[in-house]
């Protein structure tokens, strides 16, 4: 369903993603894990046509993303890591806008909007402007919107960041239902290891722009001899808090962003 070969992204002389290859089977839930600044978001941006790779190939549902971005966009949905709502519109209008862009027939659209707003517990706030929402409410709305059109592939970039366990639980069970009932392939990143352990069938760990290991959560634990995925993750990516290194990369990325070379 997702096939990536030799994917590389360089920002001047900084290599954010370094020649990675992986594939995700149809119907899988695939966890893409890594410390901050490892290259997760850059990878997702390339997979979702927002950023052109420096080198490499990407296929989503057998569509070449680099050469055929318009067609590729029909195959996926995404929940972004950072906000992407229109603050001047209401919750309902944000959902409706998305539904129309994705060409969901009106009846199904309205039905799903109701259902999803109920899941993220925003049904009584549907007519409120998003600018009046708290951070958590915006996050929930964002997820509800991303799930609206039931794509073939769903990208979730740290979807549950900053949400309470109840909401996370709700959202993950909805995602897992979608995966089972509609066969939607899910590609997600997260910092919550227990979430990855529970949801993912397959996990790839990326660090410094390279994939350092791939396997099921069980295999990763077995390989490292750790009892939890969190410990396995720490063993694989280093025990040290790589303050220095991480912040250097982050800083670099930050200046790139400020200069506009995202």
């Amino acid at each position, binding site marked *: 369903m997702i096939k990536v070969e030799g994917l590389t992204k360089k920002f001047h002389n900084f290599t954010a993603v370094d020649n990675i290859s992986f594939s995700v089977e149809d119907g899988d839930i695939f966890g893409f894990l890594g410390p901050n600044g490892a290259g997760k978001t850059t990878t997702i*941006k390339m997979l*979702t*046509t*927002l*950023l*052109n790779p420096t080198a490499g190939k990407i296929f989503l549902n057998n569509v070449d993303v680099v050469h055929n971005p*318009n067609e590729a*966009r*029909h195959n*996926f949905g*995404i929940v*972004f890591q*950072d*906000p*992407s*709502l*229109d*603050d*001047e*519109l209401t919750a309902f*209008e944000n959902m*409706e*806008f*998305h539904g*129309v*862009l*994705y*060409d969901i027939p009106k009846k199904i659209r309205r039905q799903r909007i109701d259902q999803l707003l109920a899941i993220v517990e925003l049904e009584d706030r549907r007519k409120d402007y998003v600018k009046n929402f708290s951070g958590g409410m915006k996050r929930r709305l964002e997820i509800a*919107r991303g799930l609206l059109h039931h794509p073939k592939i769903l990208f979730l970039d740290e979807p549950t960041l900053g949400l309470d366990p109840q909401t996370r639980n709700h959202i993950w069970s909805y995602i897992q239902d979608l995966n089972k009932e509609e066969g939607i392939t899910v590609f997600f990143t997260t910092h919550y290891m227990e979430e990855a352990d529970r949801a993912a069938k397959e996990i790839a760990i990326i660090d410094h722009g390279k994939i350092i290991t791939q396997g099921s959560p069980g295999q990763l634990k077995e390989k490292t001899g750790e009892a939890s995925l969190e410990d396995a993750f720490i063993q694989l990516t280093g025990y040290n808090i790589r303050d220095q290194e991480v912040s250097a990369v982050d800083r670099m990325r930050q200046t790139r962003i400020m200069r*506009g070379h*995202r």
Partner: protein
Amino acid sequence: MKTIYILWLRQIKRYFRSKARIVGSIGQPLLFLVALGFGFGSMFSKAGEGNYLDFLSPGIIAMSILFTALFTGIEIIWDRQFGFLKETLVAPVSRLNIMIGRTLGGATVAFLQGLIVLAVTIPLGFRPNILMIPVSFVFMLLIAFFFTALGTAIASFLKDMQGFQLIMNFLIMPIFFLSGALFPVADLPEFLKAVLTINPLAYGVDGLRGALAGLSYFGIGVDLFVLGMITLIILAIGTYLFSKIQI
């Protein structure tokens, strides 16, 4: 079609919801009309040029459309900063349709703004030629489309609002002040005339003034042709640049 409509609708909703913006954008044209219109009015008529308010009003209408249109085009920068641009860019909608929807929305808003200013000029004493109002609408729309598309094109390579002031001072202000919106073109020094002939707004102002006040320097036909052509060109450039946006 539906996608173009929803993109258009979003712009319209945003416009009507920001009352401060509507009120604020009437303030400036009103100030120009009152201060310049009445301030220079007697001088203008003593020089034998006729009623200054009739001369000035089309220029101020054009000005308000210029500012609003450019602003709605440049709104893409905000959408980029607040993240909403990503939402539209990953949707299975061609960049061309996104551009069309946005430009239609922005141009509609700018046109409405022009209508509001037109309505404001009348109690101040402007007497437009009623029969030619439909023709003036054509020019108002063309100005609106041109500058919305120009704003989009600019916003496609500006990453944040820091460059905006630069554009304001070195592009928009010259475009406005050197368009003949405030003064007659006929007696200008040759170099200024030359500048005017390459200024898109000059044709918009001239056409609008030709339609509403019966005063035209280039001739309405020329205005329509030139403005129509460059609008098509800038739409094509804007669409191209927009399609190349990366986040």
